[in-house]
């Protein structure tokens, strides 16, 4: 019998997925400062250039929300309520500060509520614009200047041009590595499962960028030569679009009903890594442009309706969702799951248009809404399994 060769990289990723703060706590003991950030919009290059460790703030869908209801309404995004909840329970006390952005309405309010209830040495609210006009990019750059200054005064150190360029290089490298990892999902069966991919990305978001890059290199080289333990060939190859996913439970459901998850369009997924920062003379120009114009999240309005005189619904849809057709083609996807967390308005608003678009280009799709709770996955299983059965 040939002994099963376990991937060192995947093992390390799983370890970090299960105990996310372990590495940053070690770094803190060495004197490093760790800054929590929420979602796609905090500009990580500025943190890295300031010699701070960016640490993605995630919720915990396995932990019932018991404390956050005293300071946030119950009819808002349960992912953000969960972050507030575990924050109130002290699970983010190791952070030296947080950066939150105007990601969505609830995200904006959370930033302020957080500051009221949880006292960390540093906090910054980045007021990211919501539209893609030229003036919005200029406004965004001004915001980044304020953010940079705030970091400099907090650390007492200047963020030099050289440091910022180096940070951009490191983060772009990470993006390229993640894209390389995603290329390994193109074969049938994919070389790496959806569950493993999510673990690797969550691990990467829990450690400094250089270490994340090393981890990604290790995983890629392990997975490329893996002979067993990888995903089996299954009838359906699915793409997952939608709100935040920070727990493997939902992906496990998808991959247990006759499907491989081979591509996604979510924050802890392709959204964070599929666009680079252009190297510009003033690095803030490239950063302001990438984080506002290139990131794809429905919190930013990018319909053609804003600039076109003649209304053309299909053209508008193509502009908003055309990239998903490219993903589906390149990853040989035969079905798309639209997933939203209950009360995630920004994704919810996209669903009718997105379904119209996918129907028009002949991509089968199913919509599921979930409660961000591990306990409520049974109805989701039936919907996804039913969808896979319909795909045949």
């Amino acid at each position, binding site marked *: 019998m040939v002994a099963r060769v376990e991937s060192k990289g995947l093992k390390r990723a799983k370890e970090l997925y299960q105990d996310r703060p372990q590495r940053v706590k070690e770094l803190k003991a060495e004197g490093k400062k760790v800054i929590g950030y929420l979602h796609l919009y905090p500009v990580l290059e500025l943190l890295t250039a300031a010699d701070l460790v960016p640490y993605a703030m995630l919720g915990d869908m396995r932990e019932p929300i018991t404390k956050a209801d005293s300071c946030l309404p119950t009819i808002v995004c349960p992912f953000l309520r969960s972050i507030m909840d575990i924050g109130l329970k002290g699970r983010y006390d190791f952070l030296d500060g947080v950066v939150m952005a105007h990601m969505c309405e609830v995200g904006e309010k959370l930033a302020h509520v957080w500051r009221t209830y949880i006292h960390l040495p540093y906090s910054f609210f980045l007021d990211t614009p919501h539209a893609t006009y030229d003036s919005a990019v200029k406004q965004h750059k001004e915001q980044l200047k304020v953010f940079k200054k705030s970091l400099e005064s907090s650390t007492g150190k200047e963020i030099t041009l050289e440091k910022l360029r180096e940070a951009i290089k490191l983060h772009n490298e990470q993006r390229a590595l993640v894209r390389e990892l995603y290329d390994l999902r193109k074969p049938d069966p994919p070389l790496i499962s959806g569950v493993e991919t999510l673990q690797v990305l969550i691990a990467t978001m829990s450690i400094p960028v250089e270490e994340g890059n090393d981890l990604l290199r290790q995983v890629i080289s392990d997975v490329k030569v893996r002979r067993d333990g990888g995903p089996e060939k299954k009838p359906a190859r699915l793409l997952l679009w939608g709100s935040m996913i920070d727990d493997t439970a939902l992906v496990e459901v998808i991959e247990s009903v006759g499907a491989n998850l081979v591509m996604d369009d979510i924050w802890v997924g392709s959204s964070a890594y599929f666009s680079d920062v252009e190297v510009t003379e003033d690095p803030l120009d490239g950063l302001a442009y990438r984080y506002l114009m290139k990131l794809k999240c429905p919190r930013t309005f990018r319909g053609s309706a804003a600039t076109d005189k003649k209304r053309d619904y299909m053209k508008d849809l193509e502009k908003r969702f055309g990239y998903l057709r490219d993903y589906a083609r390149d990853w040989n996807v035969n079905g798309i799951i639209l997933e939203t967390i209950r009360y995630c308005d920004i994704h919810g608003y996209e669903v009718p248009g997105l379904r119209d678009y996918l129907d028009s280009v002949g991509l089968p799709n199913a919509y599921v809404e979930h409660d961000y709770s591990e306990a409520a996955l049974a109805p989701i299983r039936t919907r996804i399994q*039913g969808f896979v059965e319909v795909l045949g």
Partner: protein
Amino acid sequence: MTTENSLFFAGIDVGSTMTKVVVAGMDGEILSRVVGPTGAEHRRLANLVMEEALAKANLPFDRISYVIATGYGRINVPFADRQVTELTCHSKGIVSLFPNVRTAIDIGGQDAKGLKIRDGKLVDFVMNDRCAAGTGRFLEVIADSLSLKLDDLGSLSLKSTRKLSISNTCTVFARVEVASRLSEGEAIEDIVAGIHDAIANRVVKMAQRLGIEPDIVLTGGVAKNIGMVRAMEDNLKHKVLVPPEPLLTGALGAALLGKDFVQKAAASGQTLPIKPRKLEEARFFT
């Protein structure tokens, strides 16, 4: 005629309220059918319902070629060879009874679903959102508040001369509303008619997301209630077809799918793997 070479297929549909078993023969003929309550304990004891169905069909378990489990409790059937969702199984069962069906609506004990069927195949579906409003449970709760038997609700609703409007958003709120209507002196049959209309309205709105086209078939336990059938027809503005045993379409479809799987495998010279033919209760910790 049953011979030594005959093949038999079983479908077991473990719903949130009732467990249904159908044993079918090679031509899709139903050899036995059993409906029993699922309940908290019974969910673990799906084997008993199966035993009863086998006894009725006069077959030992090892004569069954393939067993498919479906329904909400499908994962708790250790002796099933395969699990298929109730969406696919209901479609299969309904198509076998009504080949021209294009829309099927199934209202069960705790969920409701709309199925879009084209050329005998399920192509899309919708399901209700984790809430009892718009399901059989809604009727049970209301029957209980009015001290009526569930079975009498439908015929009572047909006696109404002035259907009342009851909100359809929440079972618990509707119960309060019913109490206040009673205290206002409204006639029970008018209240009951309002309840039927509230459920039908909610379910039809959900199914409209699929685009409703005839033939329309109504299944599930709620389809046994004549008042609900009428209320659905009023809301759909179209006649609905109801199978003689509307609870059984899922289990029937599961048995027929098993037949398809076995025949398809045999045609390509394969044998499908099956579980040991041992009936035992599901264990949560193995």
